[in-house]
């Protein structure tokens, strides 16, 4: 089982995006709001604050009460039946106070893990002035479908305007307690388009369950219960999930830090990732030594050319 040899000539196709991360954070501004409650701040939300929360351009922790966490106090009470009210009030608050601070508006639960860099990358090809909405697409209840609440969903600036306007004009109402379905219905009413968040290989980026639900190999079988609502044909095993995943849900505190470690820290030295989202990027080598052994290559001093 040797590593593969690649016959390289003077041009090597490698995806390298050295400066992508800082550029994107100013070009693709994301405001994150986390649906939480006073009881969860210590057990859940603090771990978001310690991990991915700081990667948002702005992060707002939405609760029934204001606090030094800091949380925003919405004019709602807690409980499952209040979730859609919370969503409505949260987006209204954001529209009033932060509309110009961001281009895209992400909703997440306090047990969702999000990789902001991959979200920005996915959104970078789209125009926030268009009425768009991304997430994990579910089919039932609404004709055009809706995006799973737990996996997190993102509204473009125009979509946010339309959501708020819909309620202001009475076209959208609090017609359900299930916030993701309710929001999905309003999106349909206000003619906001459903986006496709899958990567170039058709793999999912938003996930309503933890990675161990999807990644283990399975023999072909009828859809398990957690894949029943899927709009796109679900894939079980390694093809389930993009390398550039955006979210996982039902993530407890230990898993939150574990995913942080996997995403941002633990890595295989020198590994050339199989998946290259941008195949158009070429590398021009100024001075380069190639040693063709069983798969080990030494590269020195490269320049980037974006085609």
């Amino acid at each position, binding site marked *: 089982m040797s590593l593969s040899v690649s016959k390289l000539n003077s041009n090597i196709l490698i995806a390298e995006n050295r400066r992508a991360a800082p550029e994107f954070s100013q070009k693709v501004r994301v405001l994150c709001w986390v649906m939480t409650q006073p009881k969860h701040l210590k057990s859940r939300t603090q771990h978001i604050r310690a991990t991915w929360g700081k990667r948002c351009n702005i992060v707002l922790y939405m609760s029934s009460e204001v606090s030094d966490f800091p949380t925003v106090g919405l004019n709602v009470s807690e409980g499952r039946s209040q979730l859609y009210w919370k969503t409505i009030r949260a987006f209204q608050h954001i529209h009033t106070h932060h509309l110009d601070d961001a281009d895209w508006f992400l909703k997440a639960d306090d047990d969702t893990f999000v990789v902001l860099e991959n979200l920005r990358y996915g959104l970078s090809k789209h125009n926030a002035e268009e009425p768009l909405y991304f997430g994990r697409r579910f089919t039932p209840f609404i004709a055009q479908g809706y995006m799973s609440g737990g996996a997190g969903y993102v509204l473009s600036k125009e979509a946010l305007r339309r959501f708020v306007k819909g309620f202001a004009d009475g076209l959208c109402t609090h017609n359900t307690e299930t916030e993701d379905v309710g929001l999905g219905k309003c999106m349909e009413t206000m003619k906001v388009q459903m986006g496709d968040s899958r990567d170039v290989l058709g793999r999912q980026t938003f996930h309503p369950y933890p990675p161990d639900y999807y990644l283990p190999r399975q023999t072909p079988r009828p859809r398990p219960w957690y894949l029943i609502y899927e709009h796109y044909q679900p894939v079980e095993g390694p093809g389930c*999930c993009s390398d550039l995943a955006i979210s996982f849900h039902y993530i407890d505190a230990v*898993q939150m830090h574990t995913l942080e470690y996997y995403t941002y820290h633990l890595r*295989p*030295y020198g*590994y050339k990732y*199989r998946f290259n989202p941008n195949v158009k990027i070429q590398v021009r080598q100024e001075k380069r030594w190639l040693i063709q052994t069983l798969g080990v290559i030494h590269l020195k001093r490269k320049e980037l050319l974006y085609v």
Partner: protein
Amino acid sequence: MMYEGSSFMKGMILGGIFCLVVSFFETFNSGTHSEGHEHLHHHLKPVSKDELEKLSESQMSDWTLQVRVYCLIMVTPKLLVHWATANDTWSKHCDKSVFYTSESSKVLEAVDLQEQDEWARLRKAIRHAYENAGDLRWFFVARPTTFAIIENLKYLVLDKDPSQPFYIGHTEKSGELDYVEYDSGIVLSYETMRRLIEIFKDVDRCPERGNALWKTPEETQLATCLKYSGVFAENGEDAQGKGLFNKKSVSSLISDSMGQNPADVVEACCSDMAITFGGMSQSQIQVLMYGVYRLRPYGHDFHDSLTFLPPKDSDND
């Protein structure tokens, strides 16, 4: 009755004293051999980034050719699920991986050593690997319950000469003896393997069937034989001194860190260049495989001096 009883008691006492004397004598013997051998480095770290950048092309070329790994994975039919998981995941990243089993399984391929005793099996595997090494110069011995990131193993030994005796992993002490813990994986250089083959012939110092009154674990038996060959255990760690070889699972280590370092859980926990983890279930290992080889944030680039290509015919890395 009394007369027989006291003979019995005398016999027991004499026997007990004899046992104590024999075991004392044995430890005394092994103690004296440790004098006169210098521990040049008890802690072993990877080459620094600065040093890597200073290297000449021919040096880099030598190193890249040397740093190829033969994985010996010691399985039994009882560990079939972990065997299959290792086969499907990390072992694909070894330059050569061979499964050595106590008895054959119809389901998975392995070299059947037909040996129930674990130490005897390990010896046979080592002999087989040495004879079939080809031009591979580094050897990694692990059970299938261990998960290894071979690229990070290569990074650790990159600047080490395999014609020198190296014996690396997570080190522990058994009395005066430093040994490498089996559960977190054992790294051996070619020279160490060569010396082992030699010392295996010495039935007094390195017997195949233990002559102690109780069974010693293979990891300490290995350390003892190696000590007689002048090879000493070294602890593999990163530039910050964090251990690279772990027998605990990632979530267990994270959980410990949450208790001990709540302000800085991930930073304080585990190395970015960790090599092994243990005690993980099959589905946790599939997630770890994805976490190591695939899941990453777009736009982060590391400028490593070497590149390792992904293995052929694999879809989970």
